């Protein structure tokens, strides 16, 4: 695959992936079919599609938490064997450990990976300073607001310095203002680190504002319907970009494409009910 070009192999390659689930009663459900995706190094890819179409499943395949029923997943040109230490994951829900305080949560990654406590603490303080939470080191997650918890999550994920960052609708539970602030922070952190990002969302504007490429998926079983390259200049200011004509045009075009799939998805849900 990769010998076509002279540069390093892409960060993520999903080649003809199919993923089936079999229920305990023996019924089989195909979540993704013939799925192809390539994420270059340092590229920010957003994946949009109707609800429940199998967007999250694609991410689980990359982490190694799930295995494809057919096809191949390659990371940095190599196969996926179990959980890859170069991968970081941002969850939709809060996945912080509620019994650990803020700094302990952020220290978890380095400690799990065998760093010394002093080292982990130093790194954690550094990352918490970057997300503006230096004053909350000893708070517990339940004492923080949703936006602050998300920042802790980001610090927890980024501290491991992932080369591949997977994000599963990470900001969908936040209010609109907080979400915009988090977008800015994410872009800032991403620009510093130059990780390859796959950002799953159902929010098209979010996808266009953040990404280099937007993948539109079909209603389940998911396969790639079309890929759009978003040629908006960086660095982007997410709070202002939404008023630019280029941004609006991208959103309109992609929405036309996405709408049919959303309608199909709804129609099927209606038939099933």
């Amino acid at each position, binding site marked *: 695959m990769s010998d076509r070009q002279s540069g390093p192999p892409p960060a993520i390659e999903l080649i003809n992936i199919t993923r089936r689930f079999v229920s305990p009663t023996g019924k089989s459900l195909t979540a993704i079919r013939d799925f192809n995706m390539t994420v270059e190094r340092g590229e920010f890819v957003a994946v949009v599609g109707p609800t429940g179409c199998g967007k999250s499943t694609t991410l689980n395949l990359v982490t190694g938490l799930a295995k494809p029923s057919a096809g191949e997943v390659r990371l940095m040109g190599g196969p996926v064997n179990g959980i890859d230490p170069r991968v970081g994951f941002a969850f939709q829900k809060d*996945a912080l*450990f*509620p*019994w650990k305080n803020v700094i302990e949560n952020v220290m*978890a990654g380095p400690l*799990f990976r065998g760093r010394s406590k002093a080292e982990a603490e130093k790194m954690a303080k550094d990352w918490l300073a970057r997300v503006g939470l230096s004053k909350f080191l000893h708070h*517990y997650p*339940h*004492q923080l607001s949703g936006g602050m918890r998300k920042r802790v999550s980001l610090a927890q994920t980024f501290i*491991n310095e992932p080369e591949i960052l997977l994000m599963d609708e990470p900001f969908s539970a936040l209010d609109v203002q907080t979400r915009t602030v988090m977008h800015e922070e994410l872009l800032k952190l991403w620009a510093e680190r130059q990780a390859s990002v796959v950002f799953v969302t159902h929010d098209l504007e979010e996808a266009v504002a953040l990404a280099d490429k937007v993948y539109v998926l079909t209603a389940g079983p998911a396969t790639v319907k079309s890929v759009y390259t978003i040629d908006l200049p960086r660095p982007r200011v997410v709070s202002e970009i939404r008023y630019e004509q280029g941004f609006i045009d991208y959103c309109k075009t992609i929405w036309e494409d996405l709408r049919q799939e959303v309608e199909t998805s709804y129609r099927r849900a209606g038939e099933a009910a």
Partner: protein
Amino acid sequence: MTDTTMDSVNTLFRPGTSDKEIEAAALKAIAARKRTVLFWQVAILVAILGIWEIGARTGFIDPFFYASPSAIGQRLYEWATEGTTEGSLWFNLGVTMEEALIGFFAGSIAGIVVGVGLGQNKLLSDILSVYIKAINSIPRVVLAPIFIMIMGLGLASKVALAFIMVFFVVFANAFQGVREADRDMIANARILGASDWKVTREVIIPSAMSWIFASLHVSFSFAIIGAIVGEFVGARYGIGQLISIAKGTFDAAGMFAAIVLVMIVTLVAEYLMTLVENRLAKWRPQQSLDTH
């Protein structure tokens, strides 16, 4: 900060009242409420004991069967100062506590280990579930005669009974707690780099802990029940044995005195357990303050 609901101030303040004054008023209201609760708690106790005592003295309640608070107090005093027919009261209490505590700790540790282990192994738990249900359906006290036959009148048989009473409660809760552990949280730990053992220790056990603690509260009194029932059936010493002897001599005051003792012991244990739990669970959201 949705966890702490502020109580809406239901008294009308003059315009210009400072926050400090409002807070002071609220603190005063909280203190007053605490006093009211305590007053009625004591009042109800005094009323019950008073009615019981007067009833016993006037013959309205038959003191032969129901004793009276003063007779029970008298008996406790005698036991404490002169000892019981079976030796010193403290010795007997110690015997029962030893049986209950060994059974409690052994039973809870075994329950947690087996519960956490089986909770993570779907296949094994599917295979064993039918046996666990079968054993669990045995009323535990019927095992007392068997244990005494096998292990004799001493410590071992009572510990075994206390153990079996505690084990199943703690096991069931630990098992359920593990099953309820958040899947995303486990996935998060794995991706952050945790090994299987670290996931168990740092994610699964802590998240099962509130389930486990809920069972520990009940299971201490189960351990006491196990020890005392064991002593009823056959023992040389212990609170159960004291009750058994009191029954044999139609000594109502003796029986009630033993009950009061057990009650105090269990309440103290419960209090200690709550202290430990609050220390361990300081990360949990505080109960909302409600002064209505």
